[in-house]
């Protein structure tokens, strides 16, 4: 179920709950699947020096990022018995409380999806050139760094 060419993982703006719900719905026809696992990254209203983050403006080195997402995807299919995998990441403004990352893995068996999802999310955080400008309520900003 792997694809040879990198897909475009990026979506403009937040990932809606309709989109996520519809993705789950679409898997009802894939009846070899016995377990799904989903990670949703949500923009947190961090308080930094008395100021609150109101949104993150995401940018990326898109070609390299899509290539890295592709490599992570290939590596995950190699390591784990997955039926399918979907990754979506936002670009542009995502407000606090909205979803900026959606990772969806499916397998015949549950144990696989727990391990696979953690592997994929950690690889995304470490290896994919995505940049986040944390915008405060007073419109000042700082650059986010993954911890």
């Amino acid at each position: 179920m792997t694809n040879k060419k990198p897909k475009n993982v990026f979506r403009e703006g937040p990932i809606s709950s309709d989109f996520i719900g519809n993705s789950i719905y679409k898997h009802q026809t894939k009846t070899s699947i016995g377990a799904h696992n989903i990670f949703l990254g949500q923009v947190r209203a961090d308080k930094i020096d008395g100021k609150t983050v109101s949104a993150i403006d995401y940018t990326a080195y898109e070609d390299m990022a899509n290539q890295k997402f592709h490599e992570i995807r290939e590596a995950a299919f190699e390591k784990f018995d997955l039926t399918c995998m979907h990754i979506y990441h936002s670009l542009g403004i995502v407000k606090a409380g909205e979803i900026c990352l959606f990772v969806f893995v499916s397998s015949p068996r549950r144990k696989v999806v727990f391990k696979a999802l953690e592997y994929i999310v950690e690889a995304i955080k470490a290896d994919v050139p995505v940049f986040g400008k944390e915008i405060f309520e007073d419109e000042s900003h700082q650059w986010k760094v993954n911890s």
Partner: protein
Amino acid sequence: MLITIKYFGLIAEVTNTEEESLEFSGTTISDLVNALHSKYDSLKNKDFQIAQNQELVDFETKLTGDEIALLPPFAGG
């Protein structure tokens, strides 16, 4: 050789541009970084990695004339 350099995030704020082309006679990534440090003084105290042809490279790597990108710390997800 003519080198295209892309800047992202915090680094693009320092350079005040997202992309430029430079005629450059050095041979390694390190040579290029030194030249960029001279051009953009405040780049010296910024943390970044370098990609050549969309792969991360170290400072000893030879310049190939492919696209270079200066990448600040990643913040996906």
